[in-house]
């Protein structure tokens, strides 16, 4: 017993370091991917000048952000102001610990993995709130208010969309949920729960503040929303955490609905990554296609459509399981 704890601890620490690297790498890749995809959709090459085909562009961006002056607005509470980006970033890293990337690539196998992820991603909204509140900026304040009500509202259909899966597998363990699905696409939960998948995906978009639900930072209305006043690393951390949450959302969707690391022929982490990146690509694609919804419409979608649909879906699932 005494021996077991340190091993677990070491694994977690190594895992944390690995996830940080993973998060960083993903952010770099995603920034590049996002800009390239946007460019191609706009029929222009996107970043092209830094490095071959612009692959070093994210590094150049990062370098620029690191080099910027750190600036705290007058009248802002500087402790909370600088705590907010960290609060936003930290839970994101923890969430990666419980995601089963492959049959053997899982840092922390716990039977409440899903709960852990849902709980920790909820902390992000606190960061938004603090950032908007302490910035001493009206745009940031409005952005934060939007962010909070949006996140709180969308948490409900998100959970309701997850529940059918829980009932079907009877576990919160992401590893077991993955194993509950087969290798072939028709054995994945997306086939049994298409409605839940759609609801979950929409909620994931809203929870990660991605367009068309990017209201907290709607730049044509609120200049930059809650992170208006952040410069340099503060902004970079928010940026990073936004991409980290995107990856988490895609990972959880892949685990719950797309069979996780299971795939035709040879299962493994490559299938997982492929699925995650396809989902991320869809997210990027959606962002560059649609206008932004309005705030009351956003809440209407949630309360009037997603929640009733999710409840009906849940009831039907329960009925089928009970029969």
């Amino acid at each position, binding site marked *: 017993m005494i021996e077991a704890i340190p091993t677990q601890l070491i694994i977690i620490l190594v895992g944390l370091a690995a996830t940080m690297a993973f998060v960083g790498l993903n952010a770099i890749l995603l920034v590049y991917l996002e800009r390239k*995809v946007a460019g*191609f*959709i*706009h*029929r*222009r*090459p996107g970043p*092209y000048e830094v490095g071959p085909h612009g692959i070093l562009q994210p590094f150049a961006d990062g370098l620029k952000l690191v080099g910027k002056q750190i600036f705290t607005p007058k009248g802002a509470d500087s402790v909370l102001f600088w705590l907010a980006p960290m609060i936003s970033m930290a839970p994101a890293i923890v969430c990666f610990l419980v995601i089963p990337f492959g049959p053997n690539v899982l840092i922390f196998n716990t039977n409440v993995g899903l709960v852990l992820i849902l709980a920790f991603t909820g902390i992000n909204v606190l960061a938004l709130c603090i950032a908007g509140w302490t910035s001493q900026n009206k745009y940031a304040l409005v952005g934060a208010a939007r962010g909070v009500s949006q996140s709180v509202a969308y948490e409900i259909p998100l959970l309701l969309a997850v529940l059918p899966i829980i009932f079907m597998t009877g576990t919160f363990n992401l590893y077991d949920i993955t194993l509950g699905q087969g290798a072939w696409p028709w054995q994945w939960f997306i086939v049994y729960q298409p409605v839940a998948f759609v609801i979950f995906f929409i909620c994931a978009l809203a929870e990660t503040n991605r367009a068309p639900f990017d209201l907290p930072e709607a730049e044509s209305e609120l200049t930059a929303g809650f992170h208006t006043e952040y410069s340099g690393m503060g902004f970079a951390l928010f940026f990073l955490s936004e991409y980290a949450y995107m990856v988490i959302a895609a990972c959880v969707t892949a685990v719950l609905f797309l069979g996780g690391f299971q795939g035709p022929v040879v299962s493994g982490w490559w299938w997982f990554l492929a699925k995650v990146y396809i989902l991320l690509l869809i997210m990027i*694609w*959606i962002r*560059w*296609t*649609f206008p932004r919804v309005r705030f009351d419409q956003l809440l209407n979608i949630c309360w009037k*459509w997603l929640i009733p649909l999710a409840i009906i879906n849940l009831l039907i699932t329960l009925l089928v399981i009970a029969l």
Partner: protein
Amino acid sequence: MIVKSIRENLGGMWSLLVGLRVTSINFFRPHVTVHYPRQCVPTLEGYRGHIELVPLEKDPLKSKCIACSNCVKICPTSCISLKATKPKKAAVAEGADSPAAKVPSEGKKEAPVKKAKPELQSFVLDYNYCSLCGLCVQSCPTGALEFSDDVYLAGFTRQEFVFDLLARLQRQAQKKEQ
């Protein structure tokens, strides 16, 4: 009521898919931009860059300008300033007989045929203030001004855009000779 609203929303969903289709089609279509520093757009024809002096056919080092100051007077932003020597008797009016072919609107030519031509000493354009209206080119009696196709201009100071057009003309002429 509910049925109608559901149908409406489903129609709306469909329109979103149509939108996604449009962007995905465009994703795979060729780019319409060029990689600027390595390639330039081919469509610069007709573009009015800053003005430049037209050299004499006989002497590419000299301009057709007869220092009549028409362009100085008409320029809305007074960005042309020129200096000329007093007319010398010996000088032959070479520039006067070259027709201002590019200026069809011309009523009467003010070209001084009999009088000796003053020698142009400097012709400075302050490009910072030029509005590229083309009035100077039109009002020149000898067709001594034209638009350059110099569009890729960039500099760090304003002074870089105060062009001495006569010197520019001579530079270009020398370059051509080499």
